[in-house]
């Protein structure tokens, strides 16, 4: 059982959790993740460790509600428990002085790039961060990213905040303006990572992406997380999650991530129904407290 010390929404549907996990806090390095199982019937989902405090024995994760598991997780709050948290998993990001590094975060991907950006800054790199979100409300970690960046650029798809457009527009500008770039790190939705890879390939700019295949154990045991990189099978949980963007077969990733789409929809629909019926019954009782299955376990 892992105690949630603190939980707060950063944006609608995006929540940050501070979790008591002393062993993990001591060992975490940027780029690594945990696998979380919320309750007995739950699945195991991977989540990047945003930060850790070895002294206090805590780690933080930032979670975006997508399907049932992340929605359920985001219904938990301070004082609740998570049944299993295991990690730190995956290869840590390579941290050294590259020169100028462009760090690109799309949506919740921003939280996933944050620890690596901070470590790269500390290692003496010039950090140009490009943070993208659908709209103003969904821009997260602005202050945190600013603190570790030499330059911070923000884009929103609808222009409701900062510059209208996509993170790739900013990258294109940097390239066109002849800004020397030694490394690009891009983390976000697959289409965004693919677009970045396509843009930097011709420019021969070394580019890393953090892949998000479906995982189970996270220790190399199941092979479910295999991705095709440079024509070879790699296990994202032990060989990654960061890979050379120019070698990644994104088509295979998209196809494999869609394997359980209908089951995922079914889970989410049933979860919604359950929530609604609970809401109705609590309304009827008039006590206004909503206890979600799993949240008290």
């Amino acid at each position, binding site marked *: 059982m892992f105690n949630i010390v603190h939980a707060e929404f950063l944006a609608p549907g995006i929540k940050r959790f501070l979790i008591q996990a002393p*062993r*993990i806090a001591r*060992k975490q390095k940027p780029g690594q993740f945990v696998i979380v*199982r919320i309750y007995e*019937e*739950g*699945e*195991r989902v991977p989540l990047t460790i945003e930060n850790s405090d070895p002294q206090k024995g805590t780690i933080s994760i930032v979670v975006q509600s997508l399907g*049932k*598991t992340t929605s359920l997780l985001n219904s938990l709050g301070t004082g609740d428990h998570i*049944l*299993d*948290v*295991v*990690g*730190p*998993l995956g290869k840590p990001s390579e941290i050294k002085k590259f020169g100028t590094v462009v760090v690109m975060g799309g949506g919740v991907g921003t939280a996933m790039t944050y620890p690596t950006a901070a470590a790269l800054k500390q290692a003496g790199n010039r950090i140009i961060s490009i943070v993208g979100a659908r709209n103003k409300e969904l821009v997260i970690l602005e202050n945190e990213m600013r603190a570790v960046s030499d330059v911070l650029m923000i884009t929103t798809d609808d222009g409701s905040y900062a510059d209208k457009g996509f993170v790739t527009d900013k990258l294109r500008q940097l390239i066109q303006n002849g800004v020397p770039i030694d490394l690009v790190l891009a983390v976000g939705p697959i289409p965004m990572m693919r677009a970045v890879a396509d843009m930097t390939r011709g420019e021969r700019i070394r580019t890393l992406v953090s892949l998000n295949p479906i995982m*189970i*154990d*996270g*220790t*190399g*045991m*199941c*092979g*479910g997380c*295999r991705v*095709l990189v440079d024509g070879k*099978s790699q296990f994202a949980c*032990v060989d990654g999650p960061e890979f050379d963007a120019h070698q990644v077969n994104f088509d*295979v990733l998209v*196809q*494999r991530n*869609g*394997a*359980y789409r209908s*089951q*995922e929809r*079914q*889970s989410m629909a*049933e979860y919604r129904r359950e929530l609604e019926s609970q809401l109705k019954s609590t309304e009827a009782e008039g006590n206004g407290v909503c206890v979600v299955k799993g949240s008290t376990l």
Partner: protein
Amino acid sequence: MTAPPKPSLNPVPVKERMKMPRQQMPEQAAELRAANFTEVNLGYSEELARQEALRCIECAKPACTKDCPVGVKVYEFVQLIVAGDFAGAAAKIREDNVLPAITGRVCPQEDHCEGGCLMGKKVKPLGIGYLERFVADYEQRMGVRNLPNVPPSGKKVAVVGSGPSGLTVAGDLVQKGHKVRVFEALHELGGVLVYGIPEFRLPKQIIREQLDYMRDMGVEFETDVVVGRTVAIDELLEEEGYDAVFIGTGAGLPVFMNIPGEHLNGVYSANEFLTRINLMKAYKFPAYDEPMLDLHGKDVAVIGGGNTALDAIRSALRLGARKAYVLYRRSETEMPARAEEVKHAREEGIEFHMLTSPVEFLPDGVGWLGAVRCVRMELGEPDASGRRRPVPVAGSEFEIPLSVAVIAIGTSANPIVQSTTPGLGTDKRGYIQADPETQRTSRKGVFAGGDIVTGSATVILAMGAGRRAAKSIQEYLTTGEW
């Protein structure tokens, strides 16, 4: 090895015993069980057990015990069954085997105790596995506990991995008064016993009961710890004060075939397929959240001929598969699976295609598996394993339409512990090197055993290694000598 007690407790004259038939294990009818996950074998009744026990001829040099990797005193526990002292029989087994309810179910007895049993030379061997299972289940049903009563030694031992090798080390050493803590990477304890072997062959409840027994003996467990990542071996020794470490991390990595189409949806490693079903209970989706492809009415094949392959395909059948094939590149005599499993699988309607090897997985046009292209094999000269090497027959390629394929051609060493423990010797395939007698590794105070040393083997061989390791850990802890 002590000779059997004289006079015998068995009233039946030896000659008559040879004429008694081997008692059949009652089992669920094949048509029924092919559609459920309930255990296939139902277990002996007290009457059947006694009947079977009476057949033992009490050999002067009992090969049954000699051929059991942990040396269970078969003739002694069998005599206790004859005498009706089932609790005594359980205690007798436990002197050598801390997981009798499990070994009684999954040991390849034909290669060990029953393979050695003298009766087998003339008639059928004694049903030793069935009797062991009966006694262990009796013990559980009656809540019998044989708890250690020893003063604490003041020593601490860490066990990495909760598979049969680790559990054996833990069970043996806690009985010597040491403080033993087992670290497990997954959220459930038991290793392959929980994530690999399905419910219909080894109910998870049995494992839970055996684990409760170990907790009662004083063993501590910590799940969600990937040693090498969450904590290093050196940190266990230097910072957490453990006096010795046993590594029993198993042969966890799935081997793929490296043929085209392996990335198609519908192509699974056996580990993933079985983990989804057993560990994550995807067969109960949506009551459990982990999804599973819907196999109803689909054609499924497993590639391989071991226990893993049969467990996977029999699970697929239970999940509604229309056709369920085993594709194996050698012939049936070379199949490494337990004899009983092959028999059960066949009764359930699994189709076996021998001398068949896949060369390509073909897409259905929308990113899913649609068929497998295979080549026929013939047996050539014996290879390094002594088995005749299968060679492809030119021009024999053919296709089988398929929605799901499960690859069960073997596993390799998980490198996490090795790569994070400086100075730990490994062989060229990455398995940990350990002395076959003492299970000592190249690192002082660090022992290893089970599949991570030998490559994938069996539950009882892993337990045998655990036994030897426990013995030499005990020696090391008392003498301090390396």
